[in-house]
């Protein structure tokens, strides 16, 4: 199987195949790794990578996996190139800003119809006694505000639609 895997802003083409039960070859950046895999718990990937013991947790999230290694957690985007064309077709020129953090909406800073610049704060979500600005990742127009001030939101809740 071939995947386009993006982590920390860099996309790599990764080829992975099972060689026998629990054993895999994973190739990227010109190197092929031999990986022996076992799953001590449902979220744990215990890997012997070319003999070296590494363990990662992988929790499914939209567009890929939330992966932790040695305590460091990062989002890894995985795209199957065969499905990519389909996705591109379905793509939009706008999008919805969501929160990946539960909290309470304390202030809304924009109005429907307002023109916003990439990086501009849209609203403020409070969690754990800290206020956090939610910014737009692109230029556009505020099409809809999907929450109200004082509302408690869960992870993944849609906040603002930009077009």
């Amino acid at each position: 199987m071939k995947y386009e895997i993006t982590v920390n802003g860099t996309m790599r083409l990764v080829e992975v195949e099972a060689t026998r039960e629990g054993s895999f070859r994973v190739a990227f950046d010109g190197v092929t790794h031999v990986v022996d895999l076992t799953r001590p718990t449902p979220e744990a990937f215990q890997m012997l990578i070319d003999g070296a013991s590494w363990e990662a947790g992988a929790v499914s999230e939209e567009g890929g996996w939330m992966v932790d290694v040695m305590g460091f957690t990062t989002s890894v985007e995985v795209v199957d190139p065969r499905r990519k064309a389909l996705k591109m077709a379905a793509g939009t020129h706008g999008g919805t800003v969501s929160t990946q953090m539960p909290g309470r909406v304390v202030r809304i800073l924009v109005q429907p119809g307002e023109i916003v610049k990439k990086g501009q704060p849209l609203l403020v979500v409070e969690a754990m006694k800290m206020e956090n600005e939610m910014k737009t990742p692109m230029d556009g127009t505020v099409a809809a505000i999907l929450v109200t001030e004082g509302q408690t939101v869960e992870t993944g809740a849609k906040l603002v639609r930009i077009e």
Partner: protein
Amino acid sequence: MRSPPFRKVLVANRGEIAVRVIRACHELGVRTVAVYSDVDRHALHVRNAGEAYNIGPAPSAESYLRGDVILEVARRSGAEAIHPGYGFLSENAAFAQAVLDAGLVWIGPPPSAIESMGSKTGARQRMIAAGVPVVPGTAEAIASEEEALTIAKRFGFPVMLKAAAGGGGKGMRRVDHEADFAAAWRSTRSEAAKSFKDDAVYLEKFVENPKHVEIQVLADAHGHTVHLFERDCSVQRRNQKVVEETPCPVLPEATRQAMAKVAVQAAEAVNYVGAGTIEFLFSQASGEFYFLEMNTRLQVEHPITEMVTGIDLARAQLRIAAGEPLWFTQAEVRQNGHAVECRVYAEDPANNFAPAPGKISGLREPGGPWVRVDSGVYAGYEVPIHYDPMVAKLICWGADREEALSRCIRALREYRVRGIRTSIPFFTELLRDPEFVAGTYSTGFLSPERLERLAEGARHDDIAIIAAALAQLERDTKPARAQHAEVPETAWKRSGRPGGAL
């Protein structure tokens, strides 16, 4: 067996400190009463306590800060004493008084001592009277530029000019040389007038690259006060302590003794009883130290003092509150080895340390020799959005500093918290930072640049790529499993995180 200091104690707190106090009670044979807000029915302190009662909705103001409700629970459950932990009601003199008025024991200092130390300016006056060194300053507005310059020269440069009506870091200006003084004086005044509609300005000595060093004290109700040496808490972010260690790696022995002596003096000046902490600014340049404030409760970082002295501070609080005289002398308190604490926060180091509450899907805490975890969470626990983001503390002891640090790095690498992001990986880098290792770091250590560098250093992208490829392959080759819908807004959702890099 010794008889228990109390039959039953109510712990008016949550999280790791409630768990800590409950452990101390149970070890002493004291039964425990926990209180919990609506979102804390599942919390670890409820699971560990002997009894537990609901005290209201999630917001602290409607539950953990409701002294009246808590007193009612104490009455109903037959608790004899109340331990406030830290935060919440712990430094609320009025609540301490209400506890006493209800005929219960307050496991903390007398309300008068809390009061005396509660106001920064009041505490400063009191400490000056007690002969405790404070940061030299005028505290009151200065009339003229000439007078101000005279005082500045007396303190020695650098000095800080501060708008009397300012605060929170606003309306301040540092002056390094006499030549710059006149201009600085004028602009501080005019800015103060503009910003605060009050041009009164006062002056303070500026302590360069200070360390935050604090002394733990313990006093009984019979007039004995001892100190348990210092803690270096200079590793701070947003004025929050992040890593603490003891002994302070650069404190000269004579200064340690002098600082400890002053701390005992300070505690005695307010007739202190129980466990308390005197915070100082310590200048590595001049070797001087200055009183900052007193925390009239158990500190978050108390475990490192426990590890090097062998004295259980939470148990000591209970015994002292029950009237027991101190069972050891100052000469018997020794600093043995070295201890470090890392505060594990539910926050994302790669994303400007944004809060990261959520469900802990997997947890494996480190263990083995001299590794202590004081945790408020467990596998399957949902870290709520309403309270402090600290979920646990990792404390490691070693025969010397190097042993303690290397053990702490080993423990951090074993530590697995899955489902939420935490500050754990950031610590593995921080503890190896050359300036930290040298021990000379000051309160300015965690600059934005260093924070970012340390967070980046913790990445293991190659391993993450392999794991994600295997996870995806597993999903794609097991088509029977329920699959999460992948929607086109993917990139948007990710970038919607606070401070997102996109």
